[in-house]
């Protein structure tokens, strides 16, 4: 230790502020998951579409989301969309970037899950008189979510971790952003980011544990 004194007290005093940031982080992650799941269902269905244009669009989304860095996607939302006169705030850009990423990964998960559902399920639903939309939402979708519940939990943890990329586009209200703002003010990098790391770890563990409880409750026979 080269004459470095740790100042933990300063960091501990900032805990309420950082927990406020953690709430924003969870908000962004949750919103990006909800939106991402919506888009992912459309993409997963779109990849099996009869029309080449829809199929192409869905495939492009998935390939771009999976083959470029998440940070690049956030940059694209923040700087790239400016060319179309769309100037997104850091919050919206972060949300858009993570949603795009989530949707791409979840779409692949859902596609696998859809393939795992026996085709007889859809046929049985249709022969009971349900329309195609009703059969899909009432019979296929619930089974799809059930099969892909574990990957969805992982994706949620990923979404939480990805929100930390917001600082790169100037986000200052989420956990990483609040920590960075405190760091710039005090130059106690290690103390503040160590606390942030602990909060991220606890958040990720809480989500994993909560999802396990939820799964036990939702998916019992």
């Amino acid at each position, binding site marked *: *230790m*080269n004459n*470095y004194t740790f100042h933990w007290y300063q960091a501990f005093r900032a805990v309420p502020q950082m927990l406020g940031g953690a709430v924003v982080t969870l908000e962004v992650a949750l919103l990006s998951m909800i939106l991402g799941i919506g888009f992912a269902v459309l993409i997963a269905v779109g990849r099996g579409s009869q029309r080449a244009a829809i199929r192409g669009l869905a495939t492009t989304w998935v*390939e*771009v989301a*999976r*083959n*470029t*860095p*998440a*940070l*690049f996607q956030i*940059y*694209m939302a923040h*700087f*790239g*969309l*400016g*060319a*179309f006169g769309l100037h997104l705030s850091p919050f919206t850009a972060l949300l858009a970037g993570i949603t795009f990423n989530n949707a791409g990964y979840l779409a692949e998960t859902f596609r696998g899950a859809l393939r795992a559902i026996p085709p007889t399920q859809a046929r049985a639903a249709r022969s009971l008189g349900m329309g195609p939309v009703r059969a899909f939402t009432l019979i296929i979708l619930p089974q799809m979510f059930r099969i892909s519940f574990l990957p969805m939990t992982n994706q949620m*943890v990923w979404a939480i*971790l*990805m*929100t*930390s*990329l917001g*600082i*790169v586009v100037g986000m200052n209200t989420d956990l*990483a952003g609040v920590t960075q703002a405190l760091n710039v003010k005090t130059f106690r*990098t*290690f103390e503040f*980011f*160590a606390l*942030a*790391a602990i909060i*991220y*770890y606890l958040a*990720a*563990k809480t989500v994993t544990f909560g999802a396990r409880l939820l799964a036990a409750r939702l998916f019992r026979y």
Partner: protein
Amino acid sequence: MFNTALTLSDLGFMARGAAITLSITAIAVLFGTILGVIFGTLRTQISALAAAPLTFVLDVLRSVPLLIQLILANAFQSILGFGWQPFAVSCVVLSLYTSSYCAEIVRGGIEAVPMVTRRAARSLGLSWWQDLAHVVFPMALRVALPGWIGLTLGVMKDSALVLWLGIIELLRSSQILVTRLQEPLFILIVTGAIYFLISFPIARLGGRLEKRWREND
């Protein structure tokens, strides 16, 4: 007509950035895989209680954002007075990060080898080490390889985060060009295309290997 101020030498600048991205990825994947194989094997071969500290550390590496890990490691090495270059810090952090995921993949592969196969190998007179080297690892490799290719691609993409420490890799080089040329959309599309060109063929190769090996089973 489409006009851009992007010149060939700018593209060369981006190519140098891409080379940095690739070299960090190569180093991280190399050391991460070596460590990951050791950690993953340890986790299956010693008791859960003895492996608990290792399991916990690997779990932390997977549950804390990589960006935070990079910042923490960089602050920590300067507190200790190591005076490392950002490149070295990035390589160390990314290697450990890779190893934590690789350990899970290796563990999954080893656990996929049926216990009866291993017992058969041992009762044929193979030592613990021979069983591991000649029976378990070759069989586990087939299960683990697709995941490992996915991990390599993931590390390549995650290596973009080292720009926070001031390393001019592909994404940072594009940011510098954006600042100078003020053409964010076009330059970002070129950057995305370069990332895509690097990762898509490898992803395809992984998919094909997976399919081919499944047929042989």
